[in-house]
């Protein structure tokens, strides 16, 4: 049998590491809650998109939001850093507390919220600028005082495990990078403003399996410094990387006939995947619907 290609061998090793990650000890409840979603409903105009969600998201943990399409998981994710404010008609009801403070309270600046709670999107969206300027953008616009921007850019790229691949082409366009590299650049760009929480909205949806594994590996490395909340369609991914998993589904209102997203179950990932409390979770996990 021929020797497997190096990247395949690496991928297998990464997979093994991930398995060890997945089996790490997670306390029954988050020790420190960074984001507290307290009976939150989100509307688009008159339409109730997701209702009565309560979640305590733990600091330095990776939390996965899973569920079928249209179940409101991305809506909840975008509510966590007030990105939903940008959609006309979107309205969040009920407090979302960041370290105990309601981020939707009057007087709170959404710009400040987004600086502390960054976001990585489904499709890699580097700016049409050089790799260097992509990273330096956040610190520049937020007026961060950094000693040397060159060192700072290097740090951010190193944390995102991209430095070695791009150090010789920092001044070249970010569009020359592969999809996986672009996504890691977007993660580096988010890290560069020193956020507390990183939201990821299906960050691997447009990537190949090897690039996906690299992102997952990176998430595990970043967990010690940041809190990561990830929406994913890929249940294996949730099982591999997440400490806790929240399962959402869409329920049809018997009176109005409208579909509303709701949270079914939120627990340790091992619990959700091995012995879910709700039969709907079990049905989704075992692939019976969704």
């Amino acid at each position: 049998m021929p020797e497997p290609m190096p990247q395949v061998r690496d991928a297998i090793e990464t997979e093994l590491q991930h398995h060890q990650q997945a089996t790490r000890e997670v306390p029954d409840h988050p020790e420190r809650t960074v984001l507290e979603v307290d009976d939150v409903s989100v509307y688009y105009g008159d339409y109730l998109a997701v209702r009565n969600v309560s979640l305590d998201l733990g600091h330095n943990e990776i939390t996965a939001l899973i569920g079928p399409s249209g179940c409101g998981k991305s809506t909840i994710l975008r509510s966590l850093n007030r990105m939903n404010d940008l959609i006309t008609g979107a309205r969040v009801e009920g407090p979302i507390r960041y370290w105990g403070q309601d981020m939707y309270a009057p007087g709170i600046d959404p710009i400040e919220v987004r600086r502390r709670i960054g976001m990585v999107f489904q499709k890699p969206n580097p700016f049409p600028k050089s790799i260097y300027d992509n990273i330096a953008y956040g610190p520049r616009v937020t007026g961060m005082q950094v000693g040397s921007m060159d060192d700072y850019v290097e740090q951010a790229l190193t944390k995102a495990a991209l430095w070695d691949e791009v150090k010789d082409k920092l001044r070249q366009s970010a569009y020359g990078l592969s999809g996986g590299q672009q996504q890691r650049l977007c993660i580096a760009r988010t890290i560069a403003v020193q956020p507390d929480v990183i939201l990821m909205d299906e960050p691997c949806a447009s990537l190949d399996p090897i690039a996906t594994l690299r992102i997952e590996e990176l998430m595990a490395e970043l967990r010690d410094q940041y809190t990561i909340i990830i929406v994913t369609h890929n249940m294996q991914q949730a099982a591999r990387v997440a400490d806790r998993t929240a399962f959402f589904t869409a329920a049809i209102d018997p009176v109005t006939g409208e579909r509303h997203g709701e949270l079914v179950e939120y627990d340790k990932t091992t619990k959700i995947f091995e012995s879910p409390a709700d039969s709907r979770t079990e049905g989704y996990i075992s692939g019976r619907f969704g």
Partner: protein
Amino acid sequence: MSTYTPATSGADARRAVLSTSGRSREQTPQSVLFMILLWLSLLIGFVTLAVLLIDTFADGLTRLDGRLFTGYPSSRAEEAGARPAILGSLWVIGTTAVLAVPLGVAAAVHLEEFADRKRWWNRLIEINISNLSAVPAIIYGMLALGTLALVGVQQKNIVIGGAIALAMLILPVIIISTREAVRAVPRELRDGSLAVGATPLQTTWRITLPAAMPGIATGTILGLSRALGEAAPLLLLGGLVFLRFDPNGLLSQFTTMPIQIFSWTAQPQAEFHTLAAGASMLLMGLVLLMNGAAIYIRNRYQKRW
């Protein structure tokens, strides 16, 4: 038309032998006739343009010389040149650009990025801008005339007056093309910027506008090249004058190339008609150059996202 081999059974049921008769239904008499019509339409347009260009070229070639650029208008055709008109055109178009580009881009950015489309007045403005681009050019001349009178300027044939008329004329073109360019910038880029804590204003300045710049430049150049060839609003402002000096400021009297061409063609002597043809070639060359630049920018900086 085609002959099918009758299928016998089972797996052969859906198999047929393709006809080899050589007759294709892609070329029926109707479709051939239709193609001929299309070609004829194209030919008429193309031949007319070619004849016009060649005729002008043949007429004007003798006077597309140095004197056209250096000479002043004169009653003697062999001495006359378009120097004040060329400089006047540059002055007016330059001023038009200074007036129309910032205003048009800012208006477009506001409508596209900040205006709440649910408000009726914003929708009204949008409809009006589309309609403005269909307003006859001479109306803008009257508008500029009115504007000058309103601010108490007696002298109407001045650079700034002409520029106001032309700026208003091309403002809808600039606004519409800028809006399209801004709209073509993907939502994800703005989201990426906002997600690192940039303000909407920073996002517009540093991400959206630079990304939309090729489209904005293309639309602006096309608008300016239209203004360059426009005579009607300037005629209304009294641009048809005999000037023997170079325009030297915003309040200077001026004439432009289209007006100069118009005035020469109105002369009885054939020599002036030759001169007009020469100046026309120059004007066409300029407009072609500008449109070429617009196409180049559009292709060179084609969106890469």
